[in-house]
């Protein structure tokens, strides 16, 4: 076990016959108090007593326990409001770290976040998701280890959160994964989740990149404070993240917002939105424009030995290449038609567009706005803002960190580990790790020491 937090399952105090163990009685109050502190709902002992309705002695006892586990910090003084200044109770977000990664069609991103989900560092590099999954897993592991070496040398890791390009089957609320769900055909049969769980000794969560990016945008980007938001990721696939009442709406199976499958019609052809407006279409049409002489700019790129991808077409459109402008405009109009339907159904206050095609030009955003405004009820668009994300791929990392943070401290999950002071001691996870450790695999990485602050 990589983390060996103080075992508080047995109280040192004598207990009478038939009285429940402290472990059985303290866990619910520890969970409630820790989450009040963690979410910022209460930050003094008085506030905790008031909000939790626990007595002073219980609050004092539980805070001592949480302090011993390194989960809260009471070293800071607050502002006095007559009398002595109260001692502030803070969540010790640097008690441990979360490793996050985004696996995109053409790039991989890794980061380290603290337990509040705040990103401490990040790195992105080009990658090919169609490469053998073992190579990808090896690169991911190498980057995780590099990140740990730099940013959590004496700390400990409590979870891994992955963003993947597709809906994740079996990722129900609150559960860490026990096996690799089918996400991409190329990964079939490769135990990515099992490998990471075994090698790093921590629970692994996985969400679609649209979900994590929506969470990231909502908590750290343009969506801060938004109650209703639509997030659109435009790439090879086109997906939407839906925020209702300030919460991500995941649907029954985490598959909400798969708008890329909706049928659309363009130029006499009908097909799914992904096919007629996604990056494959933009690349294909760009190549054709380079070859038939409609785009001298793209033809020039080819003549110099450059590759034409959707990015080159988007950049050419931004510079004013007429053929590229036409291709990107068509994509924007088609996506806009589908988004207009969603906007009329949901009446969001904000629509955020993301993805490298959107980042590299203004044309797609303009075309999408035109289509949405043209097809929406005036009430829907009266105060509607349609903007481009400023977060880029960081949104997926920030959102992934939020997923792990929320799952680690979800009351149902937290009560199973809080008495041991570490989620690695969660019984279901301990059983999984034990099982996976007995199956063949590479030797685990060196374990970090427990109870040390992260250094950044």
């Amino acid at each position, binding site marked *: 076990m990589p983390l060996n937090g103080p075992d508080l399952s047995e109280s040192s105090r004598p207990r009478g016959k038939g009285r429940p163990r402290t472990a059985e009685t303290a866990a619910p109050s520890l969970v409630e108090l820790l989450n009040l502190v963690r979410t910022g709902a209460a930050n003094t002992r008085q506030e905790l007593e008031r909000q939790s309705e626990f007595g002073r002695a219980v609050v004092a006892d539980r805070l001592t326990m949480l302090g011993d586990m390194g989960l809260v910090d009471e070293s800071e003084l607050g502002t006095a409001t007559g009398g002595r200044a109260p001692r502030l109770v803070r969540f010790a977000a640097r008690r441990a770290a979360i490793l996050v990664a985004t696996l995109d069609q053409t790039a991989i991103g890794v980061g380290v976040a603290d337990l509040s989900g705040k990103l*401490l560092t990040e*790195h*992105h*590099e080009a990658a090919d998701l169609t490469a053998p999954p073992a190579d990808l897993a090896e690169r991911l592991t190498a980057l995780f280890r590099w990140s740990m070496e730099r940013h959590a040398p004496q700390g400990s890791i409590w979870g891994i959160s992955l963003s993947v390009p597709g809906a994740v089957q079996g990722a129900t609320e609150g559960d860490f994964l026990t096996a690799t769900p089918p996400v991409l055909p190329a990964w079939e049969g490769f135990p990515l989740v099992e490998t990471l769980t075994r090698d790093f000794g921590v629970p692994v969560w996985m969400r679609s990149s649209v979900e994590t990016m929506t969470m990231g945008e909502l908590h750290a980007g343009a969506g801060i404070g938004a109650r209703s938001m639509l997030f659109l990721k435009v790439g090879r696939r086109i997906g939407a993240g839906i925020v209702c009442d300030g919460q991500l709406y995941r649907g029954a199976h985490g598959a909400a917002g798969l708008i890329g499958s909706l049928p659309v019609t363009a130029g006499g052809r009908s097909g799914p939105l992904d096919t007629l407006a996604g990056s494959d279409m933009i690349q294909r049409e760009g190549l054709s424009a380079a070859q038939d002489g409609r785009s001298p700019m793209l033809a020039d790129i080819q003549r110099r030995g450059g590759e034409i991808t959707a*990015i080159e077409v988007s950049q050419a459109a931004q510079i004013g290449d007429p053929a590229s402008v036409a291709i990107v405009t068509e994509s924007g109009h088609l996506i806009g038609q589908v988004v207009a339907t969603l906007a009329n159904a949901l009446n969001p206050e904000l629509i955020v567009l993301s993805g490298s095609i959107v980042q*590299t030009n203004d044309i797609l955003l303009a075309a999408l706005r035109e289509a949405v405004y043209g097809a929406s009820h005036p009430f829907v668009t009266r105060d509607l803002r349609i903007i481009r994300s*400023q977060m880029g791929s*960081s949104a997926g990392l920030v959102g992934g960190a939020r997923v792990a943070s929320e799952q680690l401290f979800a009351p149902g999950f937290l009560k199973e580990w809080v008495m041991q002071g570490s989620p690695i001691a969660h019984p279901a996870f301990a059983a999984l790790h034990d099982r996976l450790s007995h199956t063949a695999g590479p030797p685990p990485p060196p374990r970090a020491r427990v109870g040390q602050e992260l250094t950044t």
Partner: protein
Amino acid sequence: MTISGLGPHGERAAPPERVSLLPDDRTAAKAAGWRVAVVLHTLESDWAKQQLAGMMGIFGDCGAAVIDVVDCAFSPDMQVAELDRLIPQRPDAIISLPVANEQVAAAHRRVSEAGIKLVLLDNAPTGLLPGKDYTALVSSDNFGLGKIAAQGLSQHIPTGAQVGVLGFAADFFATNEREIAFTKWLQVNRPDVTPRVRRFARIEDAAASTDDLLSANPDLAGLFVVWDTPALAAANRLAERAATMPMATVDLGEAAAIALAKGDSFCCIAAQQPFQQGIAAAQTVILSLLGRPVPAWIALPGIGVTRDNVVESFQTVWRLPAPREVLRLLGLSRGN
């Protein structure tokens, strides 16, 4: 030349041509009479001097007054204090090279919140977003620089050997990218080579880190250091220990160019283009002050330099003749 890295938020690079100025832009800028401040990690290095030279020419052409040029001496605390000192002076824009990550993030955010355009060089602290907390980042393709260095050094490394990597301990986008790219290139193209990594916190510690690295790994067959000033310190220490080995680094400073021309340790230098980068940064400032959209990340490609092309590369990078010593070592200067 292609850019092989991604930006700090996974952005695709925009070429420096995207921030070219038109005659109309210069005219409009002159009429506005802007005031600009520059905050660098150091003013001592050749890289910093060339960067400033590139900026000053553009600001001069555009009638923008540079009201302060600050040397932060690599100190996060000093940078925070200097930014807070500059904000009340209300410059229209600040070009800053953040010397650390989390420690300087809030101070940079305060610059933008005060309505001052902020263009970053080489590093974007985690959590700061383009368009919101800063206007744009201008940097070299640092990932590409790490690859160039690995490729150049690899030719001098025997099969199955160990290679030392001296990285920078500060959490800094540019040096992180170089280190990651160097080790990745080896992992993919020379899986037989094992990298051994040590990191120094200050330039003065580079020689001691070299000692540590060598004591722990006496069989090193080569060394990569993430920029030239500590690389020269490492080379001196290796020479003192009679342990000279093939070396690669980043930045074609004058002393590094001479060391490369000597050919006794340095075999490859991945050169940045600081003069061109300074031009791109100043043009980005002017365009953003004119209200024109600018890309989130503007990246300049690196140049692979060996003894064979050090003279022309020096001229390209520095817009100056190569040092006389380099010309003499290569037999191109036949005088004294």
